[in-house]
């Protein structure tokens, strides 16, 4: 009989990495364990979480070929060793019995929208048939009839690979949520001001901030670990947090001040903050003078810039300012002390004189109307609180307004985000500790002009919409259903779920039924997957290697990679291999490799050689060689750092110009000034921000009734759209507030609705909607209801998600879009609540 103390036993167990399930100290258990140990093989393999777009570094613990636990990689630049419930639940996604387990083909198109008529085939047959369909369009000389549709997956993770495949088959046409129903309508405000989009390029340095304002985003609850852990860290270091949200989100719950602002009126609040900052002189004058466009002279009569010209040497826009020392108008860079205030008579080259004011003076004049008292009435927030917030923001250093992420909510989303960026600039916190800063991609923003033959660009020319760097999916509907501007007949859907996530549930169902061919690559049988003719099952991230990418959700420079933890559980393939195999069948493999090599900045010959012999690991090898990093190190650790936060900070616009037209912080936006000169004045795209009321405000007043509400939505901490759906672990963590409709106690009482009652939520105008439970609470405004996204799943093959029911938000969202930046105006609607 073996005698050993518990301590000794524990030590032995530790050394041998024993299974921990049945620990005890009896002889019997000990024997069982030692027997198990001899056969137990434990491995720890670095990977990148793809349960949401933030991609935290993780380690998969693999015991006897099974992934049993996921942990954050300690000190990873994005997640600092932490992962959330979604990240932990990657295991439940991996082993989900609902996954698409083998390639499938359906020949009867009339069965689209159902699960009928699919037959399982082998990979060769599936790839041959898929290639045949694609080839037909290529042979006809119309590859543009194929549109590649992707979700955040294609945007955040697989962009170069999807793009290389598109270039190989010759279509310029892609579509995703970015422009219409994701971040761009707000991000355009940041792009116009700071030359980078929020979250993709611009991140706030929360942990070093002493004062944080969060709006239009649930930073703490669903910020993604890279943002949430820093939010909590900031709080621990004593930062004061102010949250503007009609509902008490997780962020508002943790904030020092919760401001339950009226939906869609944040812009009025921010404009009034601007009013206070300029009148109390709480701005960073030196910063504004040197690094922003506010000294730019505007013609006093016309309001347009006196003179703007191109500087050939730098490629940047130059403009006139008034130099108080030289007492004349000069180019901004030549001014020793550019004027911010006042009015000046400026002599032009042709000898004429004009009266002109610095943009800052015009801004100050404009802001006079936006008093805290004015905003108070619009926002339903006391003017004292606005004054107090503005003062604290202006006087606490460093302070920051978090840039947010998703915002296609209102037409004023653009100016709201502009004003967020401008207030940050006013206190001079750009690229400073505790301010807003640029991540590595943000330092080299590369938004090439859109292909001139892309459907939305052609459609825009015809229907008067500006070309945008990324595709706008509104015209895709017209191209798919009416051949306008030209027909799109085939969709290749890669981990996207337009049927469930794009505005206009009916429209997209109709469009997908009309297509000639639908090819879907995905992990789970989603609602869109039901429309496939050919279904190619993708592997889950834990089953596949990933090449090298940047750790974007951090303020460090770091490369990261993912190693397959196990072989595929089912008969699936990684989509990079699917693209390669399709390219080979289509005779465009060279093109695929060459395009990819160009985008990844690696040698094409090496890439091909390594990829042919080693698969995805070969891409990683080619990248490691080209980027000068150790393949061994990155494969062992999962990441390598190449720049510290210290090295990255204080760079733009101080040592390097921003990616704005002028290279400066464009408080006065030359891009919006150009748009104004092209299409006319409008508060939506005014070069200096102006108030634009949400349309829904007057609608609400007109339709006031006990059962009519403003509608807002968000994401629960368990959700990142299709990647977290139908997950047994996340489902087990579900709480009533994650699926139910939040309704204020007093309003619910008026309607006879009790907590947990079944209620119908419908769009007041369209009558579309769904049924869910009521979450009756004091933690929301009386005029507003709130819902979380990603419910109302229609695919019965998602057995866990389907039975939950709930309201699909895109049934509430009509097919409506904003001017200029066609956000789908996802909060510009009223809903009716009825007890079922």
């Amino acid at each position, binding site marked *: 009989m073996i005698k050993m103390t*518990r*301590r000794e036993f*524990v030590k032995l167990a*530790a050394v041998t990495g024993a299974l*921990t399930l*049945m620990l*005890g*100290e*009896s002889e*019997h*258990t000990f024997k069982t364990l030692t027997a198990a140990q001899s056969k137990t093989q434990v491995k720890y393999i670095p990977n990148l979480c793809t349960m949401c777009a933030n991609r935290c570094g993780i380690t998969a613990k693999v015991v006897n070929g099974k992934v*049993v*636990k*996921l*942990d*954050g990689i300690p000190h990873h630049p994005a997640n600092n*060793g*932490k*992962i*959330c*419930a979604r990240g*932990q*639940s990657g295991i439940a996604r991996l082993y989900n019995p609902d996954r698409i387990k083998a390639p499938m083909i359906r020949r009867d198109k009339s069965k689209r929208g159902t699960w009928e008529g699919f037959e399982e085939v082998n990979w060769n047959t599936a790839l041959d048939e898929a290639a045949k369909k694609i080839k037909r369009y290529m042979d006809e000389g119309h590859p543009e009839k194929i549109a590649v549709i992707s979700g955040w997956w294609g945007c955040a993770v697989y962009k170069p690979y999807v793009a290389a495949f598109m270039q190989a088959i010759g279509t310029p046409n892609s579509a995703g949520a970015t422009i219409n129903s994701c971040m761009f309508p707000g991000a355009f405000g940041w792009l116009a001001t700071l030359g980078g989009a929020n979250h993709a390029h611009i991140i706030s340095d929360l942990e070093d901030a002493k004062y944080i304002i969060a709006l239009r985003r649930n930073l703490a*609850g669903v910020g993604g*670990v890279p943002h*949430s852990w820093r*939010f*909590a*860290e900031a*709080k*621990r270091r004593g930062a004061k947090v102010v949250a503007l949200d009609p509902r*008490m989100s*997780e962020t*508002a*719950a*943790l904030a*020092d*001040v*919760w*401001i*339950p602002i009226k939906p869609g009126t944040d812009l009025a609040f921010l404009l009034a903050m601007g009013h206070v900052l300029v009148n109390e002189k709480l701005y960073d004058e030196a910063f504004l003078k040197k690094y922003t466009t506010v000294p730019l002279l505007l013609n006093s009569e016309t309001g347009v810039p006196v003179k703007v010209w191109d500087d050939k040497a730098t490629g940047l826009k130059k403009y006139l300012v008034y130099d108080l020392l030289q007492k004349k108008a000069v180019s901004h860079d030549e001014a020793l002390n550019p004027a911010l205030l006042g009015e000046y008579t400026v002599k032009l080259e042709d000898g004429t004189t004009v009266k002109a004011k610095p943009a800052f003076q015009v801004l100050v004049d404009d802001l006079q109307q936006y008093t805290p008292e004015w905003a108070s009435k619009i926002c339903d*927030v*006391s003017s004292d609180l606005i004054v*107090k917030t503005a003062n604290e923001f202006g006087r606490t250093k460093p302070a920051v307004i978090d840039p947010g992420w998703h915002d296609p909510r209102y037409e004023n989303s653009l100016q709201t985000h502009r004003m967020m960026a401008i207030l940050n600039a006013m206190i001079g916190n750009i690229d400073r500790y505790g301010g807003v800063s640029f991540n590595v991609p943000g330092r080299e923003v590369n938004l090439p002009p859109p292909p001139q033959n892309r459907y939305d660009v052609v459609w825009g020319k015809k229907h008067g919409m500006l070309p945008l760097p990324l595709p706008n999916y509104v015209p895709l509907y017209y191209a798919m259903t009416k051949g306008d501007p030209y027909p799109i007949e085939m969709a290749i859907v890669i981990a996207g779920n337009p049927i469930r996530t794009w505005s206009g549930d009916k429209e997209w169902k109709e469009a997908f039924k009309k297509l000639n061919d639908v090819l879907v690559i995905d992990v789970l049988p989603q609602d869109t997957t039901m429309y496939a003719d050919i279904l190619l099952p993708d592997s889950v991230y834990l089953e596949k290697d990933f090449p090298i990418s940047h750790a974007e959700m951090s303020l460090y420079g770091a490369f990261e990679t993912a190693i397959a933890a196990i072989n595929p559980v089912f008969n699936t393939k990684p989509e990079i291999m699917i693209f390669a195999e399709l390219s080979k069948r289509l005779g465009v493999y060279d093109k695929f490799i060459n395009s990819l090599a160009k985008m990844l900045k690696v040698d094409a010959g090496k890439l091909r050689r390594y990829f042919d012999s080693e698969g995805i690991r070969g891409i990683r090898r080619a990248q490691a060689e080209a980027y000068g990093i150790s393949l061994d190190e990155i494969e062992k650790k999962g990441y390598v750092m190449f720049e510290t936060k210290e090295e990255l900070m204080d760079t733009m616009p101080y040592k390097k110009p921003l990616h704005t037209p002028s290279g400066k912080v464009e408080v006065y936006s030359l891009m919006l000034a150009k748009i104004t000169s092209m299409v006319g004045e409008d508060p939506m795209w005014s070069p200096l921000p102006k108030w634009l009321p949400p349309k829904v405000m007057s609608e609400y007043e007109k339709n006031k009734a006990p059962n009519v509400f403003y509608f807002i939505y968000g994401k629960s*901490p*368990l959700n990142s759209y299709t990647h977290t759906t139908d997950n*047994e*672990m*996340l489902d*087990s*963590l579900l*709480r009533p*507030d994650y699926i139910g409709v939040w309704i*204020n*106690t*007093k309003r619910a009482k008026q309607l006879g609705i009790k907590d947990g009652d079944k209620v119908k939520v419908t769009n007041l105008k369209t009558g579309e909607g769904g049924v869910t439970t009521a979450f009756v*609470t*004091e*933690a*929301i405004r009386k005029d507003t209801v709130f819902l979380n996204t990603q419910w109302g799943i229609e695919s019965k093959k998602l057995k866990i998600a389907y039975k939950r029911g709930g309201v699909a938000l895109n049934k509430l969202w009509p097919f409506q879009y904003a001017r200029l930046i066609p956000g789908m105006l996802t909060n510009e609607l009223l809903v009716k609540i009825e007890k079922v």
Partner: protein
Amino acid sequence: MTKYGMVIDLGSCLGCGACIAACDFENQTPWEEGKRRTHVPEFIFGEYPNVERLFVPRLCMHCEDPPCVAVCPTGASYKNEDGVVLVRYDMCIGCKYCVVACPYNARYVDERKHAIDKCTFCYNNRVSQGREPACVESCVGGARIFGDLEDPNSEVYKLIHSGEAVPLRADLGTHPKVRYIFRRKKREGD
């Protein structure tokens, strides 16, 4: 001597549920049946707009005077030399005295083990190997702090001895080694 304990800072708990999932996978709990070692109940109180929303992570309190150990007829429930309350599964007869005796509702029946189960602070599987408990390592907000209550240099020691971290229901007299920091929050919304 080591005496393990945990401090939970409610001002940092984001209510994200990372700890629950981390624990379930790490310890292979019967979570499919809703049986878990840690929970994060949510509380909303007050009247709009003076509302508080609070997430309060719960787990075994690893009491210094654990009633579950006192009532166990077989000695299966015990407190080990590092102060962690554990169950010897093979000695457990499933009488559930401990389940009833625990004032913090921290125990459940694990049918697969034919025994009562509970939070172990990941003592055998992580702590003894120099790692933190799974819930602590995963905690996104950094709200869970783990350490040695006897080590004056540990964060938990400092938080408890400064009086900042207090037990839940100290009146029960079980001397929990899991303590909470309640921060009074200002509410200035109108």
